[in-house]
């Protein structure tokens, strides 16, 4: 049997929905957390963990979510934990749109500061704000207390 054909069926194509590809390996479960996957969802979700990438020699994770298109805030959160991820919007089995997530210089309202004594954790009418101080790996610094965010995926809002 053709090896390539076997690879193709690992994650079945979807008719409508979103494919999040090139997720850094190990981050697929965090992506599911961002998507808010729970038992009340109507969509089918397929997850590929530690899948070999055709583009590079590295491994990656993939998430396919049926009948769902992502809002900008969700895409921005994915960029925090998977900065190389690509998002493909699938409509009737065709790729209607494809783009790469973008991590800006500042991140607003997407994560909470891990410093419990930071003013952003004290019920003030403000959104959290971080400066991106490193992109590989992603490192954020709180614009209020100047503390580096210790674990991004654990602190996503």
């Amino acid at each position: 049997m053709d090896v390539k054909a076997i690879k193709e069926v690992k994650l079945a194509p979807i008719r409508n929905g979103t494919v999040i590809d090139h997720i850094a390996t190990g981050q697929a479960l965090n992506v599911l957390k961002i998507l808010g996957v729970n038992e009340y969802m109507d969509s089918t979700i397929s997850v590929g963990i530690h899948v070999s990438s055709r583009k590079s020699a590295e491994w990656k994770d993939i998430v396919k979510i049926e009948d769902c298109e992502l809002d900008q805030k969700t895409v921005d959160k994915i960029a925090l934990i998977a900065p190389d991820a690509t998002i493909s919007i699938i409509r009737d089995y065709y790729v209607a749109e494809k783009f790469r997530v973008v991590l800006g210089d500042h991140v607003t309202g997407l994560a909470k500061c891990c410093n419990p004594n930071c003013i952003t954790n004290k019920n003030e009418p403000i959104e959290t704000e971080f400066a991106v101080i490193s992109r590989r790996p992603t490192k954020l610094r709180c614009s209020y207390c100047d503390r580096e965010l210790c674990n991004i995926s654990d602190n996503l809002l």
Partner: protein
Amino acid sequence: MDFYDRDVVSIRDLTREEIESILDLSEKMVPYATGEKVNRVLHGKILGNLFFEPSTRTKLSFESAAYRLGCDVIDVSEMSMTSISKGETLADTIRMVDAYCDLIVLRHPYEGAARLAANFSINPVINAGDGAGSHPTQTLLDLFTMRQAKGSLDGLNVVLVGDLKYGRTVHSLAEALTMFGAKLTLVAPDSLQMPEEIVNHIKEKGCRPTKTTSLEEAIDKADVLYVTRIQRERFPDPAEYKKVAGTYRINNTVLREARRDMAIMHPLPRIDEIAPEVDSSEHAKYFQQAFNGVPVRMALLCAILGGEI
């Protein structure tokens, strides 16, 4: 250097040139700070001195600085005396106080409080210490004292000793000193060493600090010995506190190894880190340092509120 209407939240907001211009202006302020000369250049201005955490030197020296320049002061000294105790947010308190004064000075127990205040206030905000975070005016007066004692800040050999983990003054000071090419030696018990984040930050700026637990190893080369208090309140377990308290006690015996012109500084209050016998020595600069809070804060008030001396 234009400081008019500017917030001073963190020492990271200032360049070396800006710091030097404030230190130069502070020098000019000394005779006014002692009362030798009189100038009421800020007459008609009101300073809102908000201290939501205990403070002696910072609060009094801001008040003194304001009065010496003819500026009026309204103040809050306790959180329990404000609407914050009724559940009001700091943001609302700031918006309200902002309407009553021309400049806000804020000391607050939470890190980032001054940044929040600066975002909500139309008038400028000076951070007078936010939790374990920044205390930029302390850093400026520390630099001013060092420059006064040593003639220049360039390439000084500075030994920071004591609680380098929780002591907020040493974090900002270490960052500022790297702008002047200082050689830093960090002397602390392992449990109270400078946080890696700060060490990495100063390394990025080209400083290669030396870490040690032994004061004896470092003292003989020091131009400045900056001592901090090991704070009892930071230790949940009193036994842990006892283990490290009194680790570094500066007395005349320890100072035998020091250079004759080494300056000893301390942000105060001290408990027993520096023996009283040191107070009368040429090394002791910590009371001068406490006084210097006045001319440095006068310089900032003048520069921000647009008063010219």
